């Protein structure tokens, strides 16, 4: 992960972290010796800042010893490894929680965590600080996210790394292996407990390793930290603008929760005006985000220049709302028409607005029943909308599994029929016929009635038909996982080819890797409302937040599948009577 090393000016904390960064470069943190040396440096750093130790779980496997004394049952989801690390594991519907209670109310806290994720952890490992919601971190295979502003840092989390969280009255600061990575401004608060949480996944076993944990608390840090960061930010910002990387500028602004340095505003506006000459989608969300960080007079200039240069959007959704009746047939019933009994209606979608430009691949994500498929159907004009406006410029097609298939017809007839329904002419279908049959690997069975096909054969044929067409605007409704495992590689390559041939793609999917790797922008729908639109990483982060909110485990309950330890406070090194 490329981030600048914050050296020099202002604040011993920064200097100390710089030292740690240089020490940790190339170091392996799994071993006791390395952790011990690190622990001593962290102790010195904390003392220099006037912080007192609450828990030092680095030295000589202290953490492991503490937890062993707490009587951890090997059958529970949290166990000790022979190396002294905490190994959190979960199966479906399980949660693993390690809680450190009793942190004295502290306006300043420094939390250092050594963790690694050599196995699958999805995006399900959380570090939370009670009293400081601005400090919640989410760990995944490949990233760490500051949850509060959905700011994602991409990194390899398989090897052990040091994650340092400094909480002050100005906000939260995240360092990874000593390098400042994220900052979030907030009013601060009192940290009173720390929670490590691994949220179970419905279809996978997850695991995380905690090699060491240290918590230091105090009343203040030395002054100058924010000033040092600001001056460094200005210099780095200039480099980014000179490089012409607008996405990196945006990433920096989000990572450090800062405004555009005054001296760089004009150059940023000029850079933005020169962007997006064609192809590869149009990140209008990026422009809106940048505009938010500018003073009003520059904001309007940027917006009008932007509007002039942008091509017309291929799909434009404005303030969309869709209302359904729970029993639509009753609208024509005697009780409603004559007796005027009211009908029960509900909003399936509301406040949805986004744009897709030529070159865009838009991922629509959300939980089941959120309204994603309804959104695609509304864009296609297949369902009535209650408010708003949708403009579609170009031939569009909504693909979903099983389109128009007739069981009694042969595979060949179904190919022609399905293509008819999708808007192709018969001559177009004849040209595509051989390719469809070859791809589906059904050459010998193509004349048999569809009802005699196996499930695998059916899904191969349906997928092959659906992906043979490349309209200008393609909408896919969860078509990405068709076919059996052996067919998947071919299907993936075919999807890639389809995406390249199409001008605009709007895809409803549950595949987070697809959204992160392929999509130029994303939309999050939850309970019919648009919660996020824009950067795929940010939208996915917010999606995971919503997902895991449903899996919150109340403390004291569900003890059969949750390992909870609240004994660390009693075992801490803090003098009795609390912090002084």
């Amino acid at each position, binding site marked *: 992960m490329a981030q600048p090393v914050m050296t020099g000016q202002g604040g011993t904390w920064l200097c100390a972290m710089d030292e740690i960064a240089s020490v940790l470069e190339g170091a392996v943190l799994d071993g006791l010796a390395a952790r011990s040396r690190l622990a001593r440096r962290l102790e010195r750093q904390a003392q220099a800042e006037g912080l007192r130790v609450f828990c030092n779980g680095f030295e000589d496997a202290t953490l492991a010893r503490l937890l062993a004394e707490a009587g951890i049952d090997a059958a529970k989801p949290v166990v000790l490894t022979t190396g002294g690390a905490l190994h959190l594991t979960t199966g479906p519907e399980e949660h693993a929680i390690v809680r450190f209670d009793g942190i004295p109310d502290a306006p300043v806290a420094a939390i250092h965590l050594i963790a690694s994720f050599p196995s699958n952890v999805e995006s399900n490992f959380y570090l939370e600080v009670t009293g400081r919601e601005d400090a919640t971190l989410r760990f995944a295979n490949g990233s760490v996210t500051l949850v509060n502003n959905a700011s994602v840092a991409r990194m390899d989390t398989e090897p052990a790394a040091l994650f340092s969280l400094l909480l002050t009255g100005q906000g939260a600061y995240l360092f990874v292996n000593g390098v400042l990575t994220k900052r979030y401004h907030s009013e601060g608060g009192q940290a009173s407990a720390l929670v490590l949480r691994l949220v179970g996944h419905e279809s996978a076993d997850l695991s995380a390793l905690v090699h060491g944990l240290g918590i230091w608390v105090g009343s203040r840090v030395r002054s100058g930290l924010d000033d040092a960061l600001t001056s460094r930010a200005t210099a780095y910002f200039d480099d980014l603008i000179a490089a012409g990387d607008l996405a990196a500028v945006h990433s920096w602004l989000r990572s450090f929760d800062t405004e555009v340095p005054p001296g760089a505003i004009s150059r940023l506006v000029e850079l933005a005006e020169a962007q997006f000459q064609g192809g590869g989608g149009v990140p209008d969300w990026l422009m809106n985000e940048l505009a938010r960080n500018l003073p009003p007079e520059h904001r309007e200039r940027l917006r009008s220049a932007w509007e002039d240069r942008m091509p017309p959007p291929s799909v434009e959704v404005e303030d969309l709302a869709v209302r*359904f*009746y729970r029993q*639509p*047939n009753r609208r*024509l019933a005697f009780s409603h028409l004559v007796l005027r009994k009211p009908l029960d209606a509900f909003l399936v979608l509301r406040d949805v607005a986004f744009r897709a430009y030529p070159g865009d691949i838009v991922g629509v994500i959300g939980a089941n029943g959120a309204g994603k498929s309804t959104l695609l*159907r*509304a*864009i*296609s*004009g*297949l*369902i*009535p*909308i*209650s*408010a*708003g*406006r*949708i*403009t*579609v*410029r*170009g*031939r*569009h*097609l*909504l693909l*979903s599994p*099983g*389109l*128009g298939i*007739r069981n*009694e*017809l042969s595979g060949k*007839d179904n190919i*022609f*029929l399905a293509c*008819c*329904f*999708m*808007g192709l*002419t*018969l001559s177009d279908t004849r040209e595509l016929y051989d390719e469809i049959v070859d791809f589906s690997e059904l050459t010998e069975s193509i004349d048999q009635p569809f009802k005699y096909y196996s499930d695998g054969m059916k899904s191969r044929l349906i997928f092959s038909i659906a992906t043979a067409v490349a309209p200008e605007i393609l909408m896919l409704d969860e078509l990405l996982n068709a076919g059996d495992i052996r067919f998947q590689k071919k299907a993936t390559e075919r999807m890639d080819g389809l995406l390249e041939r199409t001008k605009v793609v709007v895809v409803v999917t549950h595949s987070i890797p697809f959204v992160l790797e392929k999509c130029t922008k994303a939309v999050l729908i939850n309970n019919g409302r648009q919660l996020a639109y824009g950067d795929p990483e940010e939208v996915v982060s917010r999606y995971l937040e919503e997902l895991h909110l449903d899996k919150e485990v109340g403390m004291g309950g569900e003890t059969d599948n949750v390992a909870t330890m609240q004994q660390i406070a009693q075992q801490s090194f803090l003098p009795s009577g609390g912090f002084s």
Partner: protein
Amino acid sequence: MNQLITYIVTPSGVQQTARNLQGSWQALRSELSKIHYIVQTELRVKIYDKTLGLFFLLLEPILMATVYYVLTMVLLGSGTSKATFFNIYVAVVFWRWFNRTIDNAPGLFSGYGSVLKQTNYPVYSIVMSHIALEFTNVCFALVVLVPFLSAFHYLPNYAYLALPIVMLSQFCLMLPIALSLATAGAFVKDLQGVVYAVVGIWFYLSPGIYPVDRIPERYLWIYNLNPFAHILPAYRTIMLRGEFPDLLPLAVIALISLALAVGASRLLARARYHFFSYL
């Protein structure tokens, strides 16, 4: 067809920018070829691939005519004659075209529910496919009827030139009815049962199993408001008497029906937008 098409979806419905003339013509040709293909597959599914399919299709009119003949002429004692039987047979062939087209109209869009809920496949093509299918069936019936009539000395003659005109008039009559019932049937699921009953009554109010001259003169003016009071006798005039029928009432029927069809089309276009919740 490279013309950019723009769709605008609002709470009022879907508007589409107009195609140019060439684009419209190409679209029409494409739809006609698709309708042709759909009719072929439907024939294959419903008739050719069934054991008794074709056999039943060809002989069913004869069987129906025989039933009506026995009922009215033998059991009810109106007297038997070859002419009466063929009067009924000819009427039944063309009435079956009408009642099969109309009886199945209300359930038409439900049968294509998955297609209509996932694509913008033109609803008119679905209706036209249905009408074309039933027209094909009546052509099969004619393939049996004409030789059958010939065997009993009712030979084809120059009056057969008027047969397409009468059939066109009947087609125009069926068009607005089929469009309206198909539209209504998407919303009212039990409409099909009502249609069965109404069409059945309509048959008995039409000169199918009896001649028009059985109607008392003072009721004729009402009776003649029924289009089939002119259409069915026209078929008999051509095929059994070898004469040209009076084309004026048929032209009036066609013109009025076409005007109604325009209205029914507009109704369908507006209703299509609301199909999703009902299909």
